[in-house]
Every structure is written in structure tokens, then in C-alpha cells.
């Protein structure tokens, strides 16, 4: 998150470096372009989900193993909203799709944020400062959340078809680029831009960054870090809900266990990023997304291991993640 002059560009350079490195292995530039855009899109969705978690950890030193439940919640809410707006979602016109997808996203974010508020109050608050209990109790929270989703929406997989206007692909030269991937990249960039702007250009962002660096100092200046934290937790949960909608549309189906499945990816991303750094989480997410798509094409069987190999390699290079947060 460090600004301007002393910006550490090496991790950032990893992303294009990885992309260029695999080009000769893939051979065809058009296939490479398709895979790269797909990887970036996946990375952006993972970033949306991971950004809230990494902020919560960085700011309050709370490790939330139940973050995944907000992903599933967002996705399931979206199936209900889009289902209720079937005509608009099913239309082939993009603007009509937007009329359906935007409210779906907003409602998903609102529900996930509201549940996040309750989650913070009843699950997380009693165990501040106790890592072991945090891990245990948020894990328990995730079980409860997942089971409640099964009670409301049923235990089975539910289809979440892409709206008509977002289906299909654009042709750039020989490379086929799916439209939805571009939508995902755009939403991800928007989220990153808003987050980066909030964190670096607003007073709230200043306080959050200061709180991550030295909590006692900010509190002694008279700011209530706890209230700020609750806000960050709610926003983080809402972002996870948004990410869940994006992920569900990406997979075109949702299952109650999706949160636990995505959890692993997210942890890898925030470890790579440096636990607490938004910029680090973005780089981690893009690397993970690219890696998953490249290995999925080159050697499908090792796709999941590639992420772990990536994490190991990064930690050997920088044991605290690419952008370590100062005081931890």
C-alpha cells in the first residue's frame, strides 16, 4: 500500500512476467490471449472476495475462516433475485440484463453485509485478540451459515445462467474472448479503484491505514477503531457477496459448499499478498487466476497444486508475502 516514490514494483512486475514466461509453452498467441484474459477475470473475482478478508486481518488482526459463507450467501441471493426478474435476465439485450444483474448484485451485497454485521457481533466480537478461538469459532460460524443456506435454498446445486447479453465471445484476431470475462475484469478494476481511492485519498482510508500500522496510536488520537472495524467487516462481507455473485455467474451454478471451496483459493491469495495489503491481494489474486488458467490448459491435473507451488515459491522469496504489513 506504500505510495508513490518508494513504490515496490517487483511484485507488480511478476504478473506480466508470468504471462510472458508461459507464452512460448502455449505456442499460439491467440490461445494465450484467451487464457490470459480468462485468468485476469478469475483473478479479479478472487480479488473482490479476498480484499475484505485481508483488510479485516490487517486492521483488526482477526482471522475470519468463515468468510466463505458470505460468498455462498451472495450467490444464492442472486439466484433468487435473478429468478424473480427472469424476463430481464433472460433477454438478449445487454442493458436489459444490467437492469436485472445490478439489483441482484446490490441486494446480494446488502444481505451479505447485514449478515456480516450479525456475524461480527455474535461470532467474532467475543474472541478479539485470541487467534486460536477466532479460527475455531469462525469455522463454527461457517458451518452454521452453510447449513442455514441449505435450509433456505435446499442442499442441491442451483443453476445461475448468464444473462443472454453477456453470453458468447468477442473475436480479437483469432482469440475468442468471452464477454463475461471482460465484465468481470471491469467490475474488479472498479472495485480496486474505489478501494484504492478510499484508502489513499479519504480520511476514513487514512484512519484504516493508520489503524493497520499502529492501532493504539490511532485510538489514542481519539478515533474509535472498533467502529471503523465493524464498518470494514461489513464492507468486506458485502464485497464477498458481490464476489459470490460474480463467481456464481462464472461457474453458472451455485452450491452451498462453494464458500468452503473458494476459501482455500482466498487464503492462498492473502498469504501471497502479505496478510493485510490490498495491493498485495490484487497481485496474489491475478497470479493465482493466471496460474490456474495456464496450468488448466497445459497440465490440467496439477491445476490446484499450481497455486500451492506458487504460494511456496513466493514465500521462499518473501516469507511475509509480497507486500508485508509493517508491524506483523
Amino acid at each position, binding site marked *: 500500500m506504500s505510495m508513490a516514490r518508494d513504490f515496490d514494483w517487483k511484485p507488480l512486475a511478476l504478473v506480466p512476467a508470468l504471462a510472458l514466461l508461459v507464452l512460448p509453452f502455449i505456442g499460439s498467441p491467440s490461445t494465450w490471449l484467451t487464457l490470459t484474459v480468462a485468468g485476469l477475470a478469475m483473478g479479479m473475482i478472487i480479488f473482490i472476495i479476498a480484499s475484505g478478508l485481508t483488510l479485516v486481518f490487517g486492521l483488526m488482526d482477526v482471522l475470519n475462516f468463515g468468510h466463505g459463507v458470505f460468498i455462498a450467501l451472495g450467490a444464492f441471493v442472486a439466484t433468487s433475485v435473478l429468478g424473480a426478474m427472469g424476463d430481464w435476465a433472460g433477454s438478449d439485450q445487454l442493458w436489459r440484463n444490467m437492469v436485472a444483474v445490478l439489483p441482484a448484485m446490490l441486494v446480494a451485497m446488502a444481505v451479505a453485509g447485514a449478515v456480516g454485521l450479525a456475524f461480527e457481533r455474535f461470532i467474532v466480537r467475543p474472541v478479539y485478540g485470541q*487467534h486460536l478461538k477466532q479460527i475455531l469459532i469462525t469455522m463454527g460460524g461457517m458451518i452454521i451459515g452453510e447449513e442455514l443456506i441449505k435450509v433456505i435454498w435446499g442442499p442441491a446445486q442451483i443453476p445461475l445462467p448468464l444473462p443472454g447479453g453477456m453470453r458468447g465471445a468477442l473475436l480479437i484476431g483469432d482469440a475468442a474472448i468471452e464477454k463475461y470475462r471482460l465484465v468481470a475484469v471491469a467490475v474488479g478494476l472498479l472495485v480496486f479503484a474505489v478501494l484504492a481511492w478510499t484508502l489513499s485519498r479519504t480520511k476514513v482510508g487514512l484512519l484504516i491505514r493508520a489503524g493497520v500500522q499502529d492501532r493504539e496510536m490511532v485510538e489514542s488520537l481519539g478515533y474509535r477503531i472498533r467502529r471503523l472495524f465493524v464498518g470494514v467487516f461489513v464492507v468486506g462481507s458485502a464485497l464477498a457477496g458481490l464476489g459470490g455473485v460474480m463467481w456464481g455467474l462464472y461457474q453458472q451454478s451455485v452450491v452451498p459448499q462453494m464458500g468452503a471451496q473458494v476459501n482455500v483459493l482466498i487464503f492462498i491469495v492473502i498469504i501471497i499478498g502479505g496478510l493485510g495489503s490490498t495491493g498485495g491481494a490484487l497481485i496474489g489474486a491475478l497470479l493465482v487466476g493466471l496460474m490456474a488458467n495456464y496450468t488448466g490448459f497445459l497440465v490440467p491435473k496439477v491445476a490446484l497444486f499450481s497455486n500451492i507451488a506458487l504460494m511456496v515459491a513466493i514465500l521462499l522469496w518473501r516469507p511475509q508475502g509480497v507486500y508485508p504489513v509493517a508491524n506483523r
Partner: protein
Amino acid sequence: MLNRLLSGDYPRSKVLAVILVAIFLGLASAPFLFPGVKALSVAAKVLIFVVLVASFDLLLGYTGIVSFAHTMFFGIGAYGIAVATTRVGPTWSALAVGLGGALVLSLLLSLAVGLFSLRVRAIFFAMITLAVAAAFQTLASQLSDITGGEDGLTFKVPEILSPSFEPFDDPFLGVTLDGRLLCYYLLFVTAVVLVLALLRIVNSPFGRVLQAIRENEFRAEAIGYRVVVYRTTSSVLSALFATMAGAMLALWLRYNGPDTSLSFEIMMDCLLIVVIGGMGTIYGAVIGAVLFLVAQSYLQDLLRLGSEATSGLPWLSALLSPDRWLLWLGVLFVLSVYYFPTGVVGRLRAAVRRAA
């Protein structure tokens, strides 16, 4: 004698001692006390989980490390037996080779994970083990030539341990003495030996260092203990014991697949049992395992009754559906972390201290 067997770690609570003796005697005579297939398999599962959870407690309760890869080692043990007996046949040497191979694999894997990730922040370890465990589960279902993939492996065990082995014509105390019974007692003896060995470990000077690290890592390091070495040793030992528990499982079920020994649900069960029984006490694992497995086996029946009784109210009925038993366990888990952080054993011991 008793002092040496228990390594000087007495229950330190009369109620606890009575419960433990009752559990011991109950498990020792389970085939005669509780006839029936379901009861015996619950008893065998208790034996297996006592070992698995006690080994997990060595890591979580005594050393203060959260690992999510514990069922990976459990699975390695079970696959060791399963793969060896499918390849070689139902012989004792196959069992030995399978168990030996599994132990070596667990040793190397836990050493690698430990050395790599225990030197970084403790919090990393939980997340890294989560990722490694997920990867291992994928690997087990992908390598279907060796592991049988999602279908798993069904195999035979040595004649003397299989149900068809019936050396005596007359039943003893109303129970037929067959290979199943012998297998149960093999598990029983193994479990007792392993639990006593774990008690020995946690009450040794080594175990004290682990507890010191749990309480204050910085001070332990400052006194001169190499924290990384102790943590890694603890995680390797814990992995080896979990591997043995896995072998016990495979021997009993004569089947193994990814869902049987590797699923994340088993990992959650372990966490739940440790917390309910009491972290940092091997006895907690025993009590927790009995409570949990009896509840798991009979809670679903109870929920079914509740669900049927409330069938007029669809929401309540859905909440009480037997398929949602995990929901109630989750609630129980959160509540016990809240109000019951020292578990059953901690509560009982605290009651003694208060009375004294």
C-alpha cells in the same frame, strides 16, 4: 504401576476418574454389553477417534498449533492399509508394509510442511495446512489407479480378523467369538497403548516445553529452546499417531475412500471433539470422542422425531431435519467455544479446585 502407566497424569477429579474408568470398562466389554452391529461399530469408531483426536490435541491443545491437515495423515494411514492389501493380498506382511509405508510418507510430509511453514507466522500454518489438505484430497481422488478414485477401495484383511473366521462353535456369554470380535480387541489394545504413549509424551520434559511454547513462544525461545524444532517434532509425532488411527479405521471398515478418511467433515469433527472434551488434556479426547460419537449416532434419530413432530411448521421442520444435524453441532460448537472453553475435563478439574 498405575503411576507409570498414566505417566503421573491422574484425572485429578473424582467424577472424571469415575467417568474414565466407566468408559474404559465399557469399551473393554462393549461386544458383550451392547450386542448388535451398530453398537459395536460405534464403539470401534470411538476407539479410532480417541487416538485421532488425542493426536490432534498434542498439536492443538499442547503446542497451540492449528492444523487443518490432520485428516490428511489419517487418510494416509487408511490408504496405506487399503492400497497394500489390494495389491499384495490379505496378509499380515501386507498390513505391515502398508502401515510402514504410510508412516514414512506421513513423516516426510509432516516434516516438509512443518519445516516450511512453522518458521513463519503461526497463523500461516493454519491456512497453509488447509490448502495442502485440499490438494491432497484432490490428489487422492485423481490418482484412481492407486486409490480407486471417488469409489475408494474395498479389500480383505487377514482371515483371523474377518467376520467369517469362527473358531468356536459355541457362543461365549451369548456372543459368537468371530474375527470381527478379534479385530475389535486388536483396535482396543492398540488404542490403549497409543493413548498411554501420548500421555507419556505430553508428560515428559518434551511435553512441558511444548506447553511452554503454547503459553509464551517468545519466552520459550529466550530460555534457549529452539521453538521451530519443538513445533516440528510435535507436528510430526501428531501426524504419526494420526496415521496409526487411519490404519485402525481401514482395518475395521475393510474399505477406504476419500469421504471416509479425508473429508473436511472429519477435520471439523476432530476440532469439535477437542473443544468439547477439553483442549490440552489427553483425557478430554477420550470423553469428547465418546460424547460426540454417541451424539452423532443417535442425534439424527432424535432430530427425525423432532422433524416429524413439527411437520405442520415447514420452517421448523426443515431446521430439525436429520440432514441438518451438522447445523446443531455447529451451534453447539460455537456455544462451547464461548461458554465452555476448557471443555468437560477443564470444568471438572476446576470444580475440584474450587471445592478444595
